[in-house]
Structures are given as C-alpha cells and as structure tokens.
C-alpha cells in the first residue's frame, strides 16, 4: 500500500460511500468506520517508511515521518469517532452526504500531510475544509458553517498568496525546494512567514482568529465535533510546523530585533499564543454548553501548541507534537462523551443536565480521563506535553508566557470541573430517569481513546522516541528518553513513577470515599427553600450560573465577535451603498457615470 493509493482510495471511497448510503444508510456509515480503520492499519503495518507511490498527474506524495505522525493521529480520531456515525444516521438531514463528506475530509487531511508540492497541499487542505464545512450545518447552526468557511478561507488565501509569492520568486511549487530557498529572499520570506503563520493561526483557532471554533465545534453534529476539535484544527499545527521548522524561519529572522533572545516576530507569536491560552480559558469557564466549553479549551490548547512550535527547540517542539497528539485524542474523547450524553438526552447544555454519572458511568469515566489529560494533569498524556513545554519556557526564561501557560492550566481545572460537576455529578433531572448508558459501540471507541490518553501518559517514550526522529527529520535535536523517563532541561520526568504515585493516591481516596459514605442522595424534586416547595427546581439547579462569581469578574469583557460582526456589517453596508449608487438609478445617472469615467480616464492620461 502506498500513500497515493490510500489517498486516492479514500477519495474514491467517499463517492462509494455516498452511493452505498443512498441504498442503505447503515452500510454507508459502516464504511465510514472501515475506511479510516483500514487506512490506519496500513499506516501502522507499513510504518513511517511507507512508500509514497507513483504520482498521478500532479498528485505526488512524499513519505515523511511528520506526515505519518499527523496522519496516524488523524486516523485514530476519525476511526474512533466513526463508531458513532451509525447511531446518528437517523438524526441527520442528509445522511448520505454526511458519510461522503466524512471520508472526503479525511482524504483531504491525509493528502495534505504528504503533499510534496504546495498546490497539492492546498488542494487537499481545501478539500478537507469544505468537506467538513458542509457537515457543520447538519448540526444546530447554519451561520457556524459560513463563519468557519469564511475564516478558514481567509487563512487559506493568506497561505495561497504566500505560496504564490514564493512561486513568483523561485518559480516552483515544490515545498522543500521553495522553503529551502527562502533564506535567499529575506523580504519575501518575512511576508511568507507572516502569511503562512496567519493561515496556521486561523486553522488552529488562535486568538483573534478563534471565533469560528466555538461556533463550529459547538454547533456541529455531535459526531463531528470530535473530528473538528481533535482532528481538523491540527491542520493548523501542521502548517505552523512547516513555517517554523521546515522553512528556515530562524535563519531568516536572525538579523531582526530580538526580545528575550528571540526574534521579535517569534516573540509576538508567543504573546499571541499566550493571549489565546488566557482568552480560551476565560471563555471556556463561562460556557454553559459543554461542547462550546471544550471548543474554547481547544483555543487555549492551541496556544500551547503554538508556543511549542514557535520556540522550535528540542523540548518545545517535542512538547508541541506530544500535545498535538494528546489533545487530539483527549478532546475527541471528551466530545464523544458529551455526544454520548447528547445521544441519550438530546442536549449538551450543562444547566439542562445533571447526575448523569448515575446513568452513564463509563461515559463519565471517559470524560474524566479526557479532561484530566486536557488540563495537563498526571497521569495523562496531556501532562507529558505540558511538562515539556514548561521545561522549554523555563529554559528560555519566558516568564510572562509561562505565567499565561500556568494561568491556562489552573483555569482548566475550573472549566473542566464545570461539566464534570454540573453534567455528570449533581442531581439527576426527573426527565432523565429513563436514560441508559451509551450503546456498546459508542462505548468502545471512547474507552479506546481514554486508554490511549492514559497509556501515553504513563508510557510516553515509545511515542516520544518517534517524535525525536521527526525532530531530526526537521533538523531539530531529538528529544531524548531514558528507559521510562524523559530528559528535560532541569531534570528527568518519569511518567510511570508519576502514574504509580497518582494511582496510589487515587486508591487511597477511593477507599476513604467508600468507607465514609454517609451522605444521602437527594432527588432534584425533593427541594425546599424557606420551607416552600420549589415548583421550578431548575432555577435552583446548582449547575445553573455555575461560576457566576468568577464570571462576574470579567462580565463586560471586550467581545471579539462584535469586532467581526462589525467588519461583516461594513462589507454589507459598502455593498448596499455601491448598489444604491450604481443601481438605484435612472438611465441619466448611468450616462452621467459614463461621462464622468471617460473624463477621469482622460484626465489621468493628461496628468501622467
């Protein structure tokens, strides 16, 4: 099996899926499971040395470890999430289209990761974008898709412009060749770096390009939110790595003004990443919708990824890649668990739920593990990556960024706890009494993902060693590991040891909890206030206005969305104005315009 065959195969499969789905929705949705799993199998069997395959026209792929890493991550997410698809067939308005686009977006991402030439990369990038874009409105929002696509296209076009700037200078679209030449054209290079950086930011959902993320992730069908958050945003990370690690960015910037020993541009990027962490965290805290909450957490996590990539050293880059993987798995799992709850209850609003732990304990556990990983708490994979990043930040002495990262980590406790307590803990609502645990084929993938989070949190070194090889491929010193421990700048981290400690602590806590269990469960309807029966207990549900005191602190925060809305309104106004001027006319006005134009052009001729 070659990459070309896999990519083309997936694209063909997407069409086949459509046709099959038209005949049988169920069979079609099974294909969406088989597709990524078979592809994943091939990747795992062939390993990172997988053959690229002969080119078809311009479609030429080159095997890289980086691409392999990203592809496998993506395939795990797609493969696991796909198990949910059969359950959603009845809920979707256009199930056949969903299945087709699901596979097509996967094909897009895989194709993009292995492209050797910019245009091919761009083609697959756009395929991934528009395929996923069409799925989003199958969920709750129509505007989300448009916002997603518009922002994404903004990024894509910035990228495209950069591609063509390089093409204009070097006459080629070959990625390695063109990026290799960049250092010879510093002015172009800086523009290219900025434009491609913007593209990466947009795709990854970095502030201030993050607004599409909560809209899209929060409103996409429940089966697709995990893909968006776990998978597709990572395209941005891929582009970011391309900009910083593959392109000779540091070489280009070596003569530029430096802050804290870093080129100013890099430092600005770090600041923006830090803002992302803070904004993402703060916004996540105040979300009532679990899916939006996770989406905002993705914004914060993207900040970590960008920090790691931007610093581009041994620890940071490996941390970034580890985080890409860990976050992909964890956020996919988290979204899936919310999806499972939604499957049973029909809502994802925290305030409308509660006590789901009683009905869906496995789902609860999956969610718990995922958010622990996302918050960077041992013993999950997310902890490893954050530890590496903190190590790198500390070694650079970047205290400000470090502080932001720390704030993000603390804040994440707050926001992950909100659904945990509001949605899973607390009182069960009467209308959810009949709710059962998620069906088995939804449970299996969630458990697998949680297992992965846990496994690489405990034994990350297999993965880290591979990341080290990728780093070497990218020309950065690889991360080094010793047995089960990871070499940091100021010490070793042995995740296994950490896990054992945490495990012991957890066991202790569990024993204490069980032995001291004297509390009584009180039904939600069994509530009195001032000796008065509460007829609408929902108002007093404790998940309602969960963090009201904290939220009040930044109640009147400036809203970036308003800024974008303003921008769109300006476009609309301008359009209206133009239409008014040119079209609300009588023939005489048009004649006047014609005369005026002729005069102006002739005048121009006279002046120049």
């Amino acid at each position, binding site marked *: 099996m070659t990459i070309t065959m896999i990519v083309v195969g997936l694209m063909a499969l997407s069409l086949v899926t459509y046709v099959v789905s038209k005949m049988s929705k169920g069979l079609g949705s099974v294909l969406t499971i088989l597709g990524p799993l078979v592809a994943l199998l091939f990747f795992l069997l062939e390993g990172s040395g997988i053959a690229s395959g002969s080119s078809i026209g311009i479609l030429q792929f080159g095997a890289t470890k980086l691409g392999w890493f990203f592809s496998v991550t993506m395939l795990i997410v797609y493969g696991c999430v796909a198990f949910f698809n059969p359950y959603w067939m009845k809920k979707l308005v256009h199930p056949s289209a969903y299945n087709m686009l699901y596979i097509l977006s996967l094909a897009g991402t895989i194709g993009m990761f292995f492209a050797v030439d910019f245009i091919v990369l761009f083609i697959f990038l756009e395929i991934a974008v528009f395929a996923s874009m069409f799925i989003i409105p199958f969920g709750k929002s129509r505007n989300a898709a448009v916002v997603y696509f518009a922002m994404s296209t903004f990024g894509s076009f910035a990228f495209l412009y950069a591609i063509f700037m390089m093409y204009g200078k070097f006459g080629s679209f070959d990625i390695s060749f063109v990026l290799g030449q960049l250092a010879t054209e510093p002015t172009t290079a800086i523009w290219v770096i900025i434009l491609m950086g913007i593209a990466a930011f947009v795709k990854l959902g970095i502030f201030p390009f993050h607004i599409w993320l909560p809209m899209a992730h929060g409103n996409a069908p429940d089966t697709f939110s995990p893909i968006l958050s776990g998978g597709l945003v990572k395209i941005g990370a891929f582009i970011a790595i391309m900009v910083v690690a593959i392109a000779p960015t540091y070489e280009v910037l070596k003569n530029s003004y430096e802050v804290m020993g870093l080129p100013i541009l890099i430092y600005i990027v770090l600041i923006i990443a830090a803002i992302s962490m803070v904004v993402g965290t703060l916004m996540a805290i105040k979300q009532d919708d679990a899916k939006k909450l996770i989406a905002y957490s993705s914004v914060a996590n993207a900040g970590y990824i960008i920090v790691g990539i931007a610093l581009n050293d041994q620890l940071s880059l490996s941390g970034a890649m580890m985080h890409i993987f860990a976050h992909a798995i964890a956020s996919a799992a988290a979204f899936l668990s919310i999806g499972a709850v939604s499957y049973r209850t029909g809502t994802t609003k925290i305030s409308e739920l509660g006590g789901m732990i009683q009905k869906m304990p496995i789902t609860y556990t999956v969610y718990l593990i995922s958010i622990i990983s996302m918050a960077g708490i041992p013993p999950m994979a997310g902890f490893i990556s954050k530890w590496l990043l903190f190590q790198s930040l500390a070694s650079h002495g970047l205290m400000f960024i470090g502080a932001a990262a720390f704030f993000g980590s603390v804040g994440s406790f707050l926001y992950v706890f909100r659904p945990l307590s509001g949605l899973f803990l607390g009182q069960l609502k009467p209308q959810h009494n009949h709710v059962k645990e998620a069906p088995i084929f939804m449970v299996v993938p969630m458990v697998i993902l949680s297992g992965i989070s846990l496994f690489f949190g405990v034994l990350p070194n297999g993965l880290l060693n591979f990341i080290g090889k990728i780093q070497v491929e990218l020309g950065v010193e690889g991360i080094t590991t010793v047995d089960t421990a990871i070499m940091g700048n100021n010490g070793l981290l042995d995740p296994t040891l950490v896990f054992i400690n945490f495990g012991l602590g957890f066991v202790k806590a569990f024993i204490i909890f069980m032995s001291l269990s004297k509390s009584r469960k009180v039904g939600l309807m069994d509530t009195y206030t001032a000796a008065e029966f509460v007829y609408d207990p929902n108002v007093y549900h404790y998940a309602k206005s969960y963090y009201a005191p904290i939220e009040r602190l930044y109640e009147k925060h400036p809203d970036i969305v308003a800024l974008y809305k303003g921008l769109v309104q300006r476009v609309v106004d301008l359009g209206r104005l133009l239409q008014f001027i040119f079209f609300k006319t009588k023939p005489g006005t048009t004649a*006047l315009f014609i*005369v*005026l134009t*002729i*005069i102006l052009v*002739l*005048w121009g*001729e*006279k002046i120049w």
Partner: protein
Amino acid sequence: MKRIVSILLVVVLGYFVYTSLYVDGFDMAVSDNRQTSISDAYITKSVTSENESVTYMESTDLENGSANIVTAIVTDYRSFDTLGEVTVLFLASIGVSMVLAGFTKKYQFKMKTNRILKTGARLVVGLALVLGVYMFTHGHLSPGGGFPGGSIIGASILMMYLSEENFRARMASFKWMESLAGTVYVLIGIIGLFVATYFLENFLPTGTVGALVSAGIIPIVYILIGLKVGSEVSGIIDQFLTEEVAS
C-alpha cells in the same frame, strides 16, 4: 444646479475630446492616407483585380458594376453589414409589434378629416410611391437606394393613415413581403456560397457601369431591401397608430 454641473461636465468632456483629437498630435484632419486605403480600391473597383480606371457607360464586367460607389459598398463590398442592418430593422419591427401587442384599435385623432389634406395626400402618396420604387430600382445609379426608397414607401403609408380616418394597411401582405424579401436576401447570399464561392458573392454579370441593367445582384438586393424596409416601416407605423384595447 444639476444642469450647471452637467453642462460643466459635458464641456470638460468636449474639451478633452477636442484636445485629444485635434491638439495632441493625433490629427483627424489627416485624410490623405485614406485614399491609399480601402476606399481607393472601392472607387476604382479593383479589390479583386487591378483596374487602372473605370469610365461611366464604358467599363464593363467589373467586379462591381455599380455607378454609385456608396451603393457598391452597401450592397456588395460590405453587403454583410447591410444584411445585418436589415435584420436590425426587422427586429425593431417585430419588437414594436410585440411591445405594442395589446394596441390593436386604430388611433383616431380627435378631429375629423382635413378634406384638403385628404385629397392632397392621395396625390402625394402616389407620387411618393413611384419615387420610392424609383429609388430602390436606381440605387446603383443614383443616390438613394433601398433604405430611403423603403422609408418613402413607409412614409406614404403614414400619410394615408394621417389623412384618411378609415385607412388600415393590409399588414398580412406586408408580412409576406417582409418575410419573402428577407429570406430571398439570405438565399441570394447562400446561392453565392454554393453557386460561386462566397456568401453574398455577386454572381451575376455586372454589365456596363451606369446602365439600368447592370451591377449584377446589386439592384436585386436593393429592390429586396426596399420592399423589406418599406413593409417594416409600414408595419412599425401601423403599430404606432393603434391604441391599446383593454382586454
């Protein structure tokens, strides 16, 4: 205010156009180069062969035997333009009748007939009709031709409408004339393509320059144009002199 601005604009435009045409090096007065160009060949009728000179009532079998050189251009050298022009008029007449489709009752002026006019117009109509026919049968010899000839026919119909309250032209027969004339024009073109080599080729002998029977298909084409234009103009006039009938 609007008027003043408009005047100003138009004046400025005029100034710019004037300077670019007559001041800035590009001289519209240069006309000599034209005589060495296309028209020169038209005048000496030497587009396809090299004619030294053409003499009235002497030169025979030229590529184009029309004594009126404008006619030569209109119905032969650039006959294709003319076919297009005929088509425009044809379209206009169809368009007018479609736009005014609901207008079917004859338009009556509020006043009764002017008897002086009524009698006089009949005389003039006869004269004008002869004149019109004369023009399109002599287009290759004298000024005029199919278009003015046809227009005069249309004008005489208009005169009839104006002077006689009960007059209605027989539009059906005009339609036939219009249709047949147009079709035959195209057919002549196609015959040129098949019998000779080119579309609209002048495949008949061109005779002696200046003779009534000369210039090959030119007089035929002009007669067709005359009939066609006449019937179209009449049709247009007929349409305009009807008023809308509430349906």
